């Protein structure tokens, strides 16, 4: 049997359906974001952990020039080492049909007769190459998918300079390549990055590594700290051209994943808090109005013997119904959003079996937060009335008091019309509501500003990378350094108009007790194609005998201009020299040092050598030029700046489209929730005033302006704080990125603020128009006949 009070509850809810819906949507979005971001993170964490475990992801990694396999025993004896896996790696180039530039990447050896002890590839399709079959390869699935390659297909590849026709026997992925992306921006994109796994007996001859290895991974003993082992490994590998070992935490793929999770953490806290805060406020506004309108009914309930507690419960139940609708909607929406996120992650992070893991406890937390914030809003609204004695509550509410505050009087000053004064006094009368409403609007604006800030960085980034730093048309990377004269053959290719060269060397920089493995890039004097720029985009000149450091690297080493820095070369004769810090550069990606080629050569103590050629070409002949270059021995990769730019734009455009839409929806829901509910409440509580004005001869438009004037002020007041909060959020999000990997400039374009403003205003306007329709249909006679 449904109690009369419950019937009242249902009917009240039915009559408030527009407001119930808008509040429920805001709650739903909060819950959905909390649940989906949390679940996405959980899926990533668990999926990654399982994947790392099943594929035996190593704890430490090192590459070297070449060591005999016998060194393995010595590595096994290092302190803290549990498992050692040596491999042969070789650079790979794959000219692909339909692509101007070849794909670049690496080939890794698999043990001949056993599974890989560490970093084992996971076979997604097909099988591993069989021992004794020289031409069989497993290909990374991201690359294969983007070229529609499958087991059974053939693949033309240039492995370590030798052209081979390989047979794909399977597609796979590995914990080393959760993000199948090369470290070079110019070869970004799944279709450009290839990883091949071959049996060692097949790869070693091509890589000229028979009886030796050039890559080693370690599994450390449980609880062993990585640092001592890594230091010992470095010492052991130094004579063999060791390039500095790194712990898992420094592994590129792992690091990017960690960063993604950190960002998810931040977002899944801040955004739901904003939504639930707004929801609590709306519940308070709507319920407060309902309670005021139902004053007489409340008095009657009290008079016939309902307790305050029962009456309060009645209104709390109303909140529970609203929030439940929101939570259920949010759970469904959150599940879909989590699926969608995971879908995106599957494209980005190659983690097999990355399932959607909805966390029940997250939903419970989200629901508890929502109910908590809703009930707080409800109790605040009900408290005032339940304090009244029944007889007092039965009396109609006395006319709203004005004139008590100096503000009411102050509003009289000036040239405001009576209608404008009505608006002004109503606003001044409820400063807290004005504040919270404007804050709600500010949240909507902030979400849009912060959300778009990542897109604002893109054009700047594009300009810096493609128009200031990389001004060549083609970049040719070599598998090993050659003399500059050997490279001059590139100049003879028809269509090549100019060339500059570079040489990069892995080094360990040491300043006092601080060290850092990185690379030094040697530039020719007066280099024009790749310049070193400061934060204002001005070229930083290179001086003889001095090294320019990425500013971040300088901070990490705690050095200033003029300080000395020790450079330990991690290849060849492993020379150790001292250089002077000549200045700092502000590139957006990576950490490195720059110096003149002559200085680099004298540092190496070798005859001049280069490993990169930057070409200025006739763009219409790029395709033919690339074909010629790919056919040359010793080429590790060719990248076209214009193709890289196109890919960059395509990828950023895709992510902008989807997340841009989400942002607009989220912000619109908040703005609409605030404006619609405030307008409805204002209309309900002031229906009589507005009807009177209509009777006195004001048109519908005049009356609507008075009602919506309040909303307009609330919205306009929310804009500026919204800009500030949004900017702050953008800064906070930027601070969460890994500064060692990239440092994006926080450039908020004026358009972003305009955009946030327009979206918010449109959402507000549409909600206001819905309420305006009600103003138009005010029942003049009915309203006037009744006493307040």
């Amino acid at each position, binding site marked *: 049997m449904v109690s009369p009070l419950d019937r009242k509850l249902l009917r009240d809810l039915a009559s408030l359906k527009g407001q119930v819906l808008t509040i429920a949507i805001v709650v739903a979005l909060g819950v959905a974001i909390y649940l989906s971001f949390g679940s996405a993170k959980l899926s990533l964490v668990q999926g990654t952990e399982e994947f790392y475990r099943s594929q035996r992801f190593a704890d430490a990694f090192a590459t070297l020039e070449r060591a005999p396999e016998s060194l393995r025993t010595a590595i096994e004896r290092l302190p803290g080492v549990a498992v050692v896996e040596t491999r042969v790696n070789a650079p790979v180039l794959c000219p692909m049909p339909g692509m101007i530039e070849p794909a670049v990447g690496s080939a890794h050896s698999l043990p001949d007769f056993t599974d890989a002890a560490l970093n084992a590839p996971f076979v997604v399709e097909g099988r591993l190459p069989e021992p004794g079959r020289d031409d069989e390869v497993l290909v990374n699935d991201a690359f294969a998918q983007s070229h529609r390659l499958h087991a059974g297909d053939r693949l033309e590849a240039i492995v370590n300079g030798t052209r081979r026709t390989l047979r794909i026997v399977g597609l796979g992925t590995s914990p080393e390549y959760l993000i199948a992306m090369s470290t070079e921006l110019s070869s970004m994109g799944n279709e450009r990055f290839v990883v091949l796994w071959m049996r060692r007996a097949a790869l070693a001859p091509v890589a000229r590594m028979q009886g030796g290895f050039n890559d080693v991974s370690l599994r450390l003993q449980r609880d062993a700290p990585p640092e001592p082992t890594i230091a010992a490994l470095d010492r052991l590998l130094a004579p063999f051209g060791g390039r500095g070992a790194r712990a898992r935490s420094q592994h590129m793929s792992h690091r990017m994943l960690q960063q993604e999770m950190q960002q998810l953490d931040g977002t899944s806290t801040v955004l739901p808090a904003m939504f639930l805060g707004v929801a609590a406020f709306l519940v308070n506004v709507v319920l407060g109005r309902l309670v005021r309108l139902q004053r007489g009914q409340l008095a009657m309930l009290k008079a016939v013997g309902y307790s305050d507690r029962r009456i309060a419960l009645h209104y709390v139940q109303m909140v529970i119904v609203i929030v439940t609708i929101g939570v259920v909607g949010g759970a469904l929406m959150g599940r879909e959003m989590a699926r969608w996120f995971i879908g995106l992650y599957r494209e980005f992070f190659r983690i097999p079996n990355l399932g959607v893991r909805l966390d029940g406890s997250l939903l419970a937390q989200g629901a508890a937060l929502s109910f908590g914030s809703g009930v707080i809003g409800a109790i605040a609204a009900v408290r005032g009335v339940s304090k009244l004695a029944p007889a007092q509550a039965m009396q109609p509410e006395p006319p709203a008091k004005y004139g008590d505050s100096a503000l009411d009087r102050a509003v009289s000053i000036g040239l405001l019309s009576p209608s404008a004064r009505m608006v002004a006094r109503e606003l001044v009368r409820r400063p807290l509501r004005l504040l919270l409403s404007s804050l709600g609007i500010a949240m909507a604006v902030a979400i849009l500003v912060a959300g778009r800030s990542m897109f604002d960085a893109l054009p700047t980034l594009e300009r810096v990378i493609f128009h200031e730093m990389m001004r060549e048309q083609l970049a040719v990377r070599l598998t090993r350094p050659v003399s500059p004269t050997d490279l001059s053959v590139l100049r003879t290719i028809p269509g090549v108009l100019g060339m500059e060269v570079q040489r990069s060397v892995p080094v360990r920089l040491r300043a006092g007790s601080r060290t850092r493995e990185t690379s030094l890039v040697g530039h020719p004097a007066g280099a024009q194609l790749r310049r070193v720029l400061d934060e204002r985009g001005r070229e930083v000149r290179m001086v003889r005998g001095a090294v320019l450091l990425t500013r971040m690297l300088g901070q990490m080493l705690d050095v200033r201009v003029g300080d000395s820095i020790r450079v330990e070369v991690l290849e060849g004769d492993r020379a150790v020299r001292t250089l002077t810090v000549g200045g700092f550069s502000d590139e957006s990606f990576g950490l490195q040092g720059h110096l003149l080629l002559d200085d680099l050569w004298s540092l190496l103590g070798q005859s001049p050598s280069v490993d990169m050629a930057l070409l200025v070409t006739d763009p219409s002949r790029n395709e033919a030029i690339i074909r010629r270059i790919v056919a040359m021995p010793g080429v590790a990769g060719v990248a076209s700046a214009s193709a890289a730019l196109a890919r960059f734009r395509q990828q950023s455009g895709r992510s902008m489209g989807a997340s841009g839409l989400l942002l607009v929806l989220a912000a619109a829901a908040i703005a609409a929730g605030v404006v619609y509910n405030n307008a409805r409440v204002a209309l309900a509580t002031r229906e009589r005033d507005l009807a009177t*004005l209509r009777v006195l001869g004001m048109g519908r438009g005049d009356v609507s302006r008075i009602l919506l004037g309040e909303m307009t002020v609330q919205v306009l007041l929310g804009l500026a704080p919204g800009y500030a909060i949004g900017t702050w959020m953008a800064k906070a999000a930027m601070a969460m990125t890994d500064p060692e990997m990239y440092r994006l400039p926080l450039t908020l374009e004026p358009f972003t603020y305009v955009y946030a403003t327009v979206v918010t205003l449109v959402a507000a306007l549409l909600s206001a128009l819905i309420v305006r329709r009600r103003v138009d249909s005010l029942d003049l006679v009915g309203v006037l006949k009744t006493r307040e």
Partner: protein
Amino acid sequence: MNRSAEGAPVLRAEGLWKVYGEGDAEVRALRGVDLALYAGEFVVLLGASGSGKSTLLNILGGLDTPTAGRLTYLDHDLTDASDDQLTRYRREHVGFVFQFYNLIPSLTARENVALVTELSDDPLDPDDALALVGLGPRAEHFPSELSGGEQQRVAIARAVAKRPDMLLCDEPTGALDCATGRLVLTVLDRVNRELGTTTAIITHNAPIATMAHRVVTMADGAITQDLRNERRASPESLRW
């Protein structure tokens, strides 16, 4: 008496019907009412609750439209007027006074009056209008700071400030005690005399009828009596 009952009426209602609902729930609030209001007249519409007098007043004032019949204001036909036309009619020609004053609580007495003078081409000064109802000194007060009688006088000032052709009052003393009610009626009488505004008051309070030029009695949605007072009582003398 300074007006002629024989002249053309300001407002004429002919055969007005107002029917609410349908079938069993049908309510005939007005059943063929004919009424003419003449310039400068002070008319009291007398009737019990439910007699249809408020419905009639609302239709005369352009707040409602009749189901059947004809309503003309001077030479304007208001029978099928649009919402905008009715708004303009109310704005330019009609002043309303309600039982519950209907002042805007967030505006002072003067501002409540100014609300109307803003809409008008040739209004009284709000202060003059307040002086007319004897509230000059209270112009800066908000409704919550005024007594019921004072609030009603502000409402009258607001109604007359735009110099309407007609003043329509729905139970203007209904919420007031006798002494305060007399004060309000005195003000209405004064407005009628000094400004020559055609005034119609509806009330269920028979003694008030003695101050009118004409008393129209309604029952059950129809006019049952339309009498002219030979001698008008002064509002100060009324007792109820």
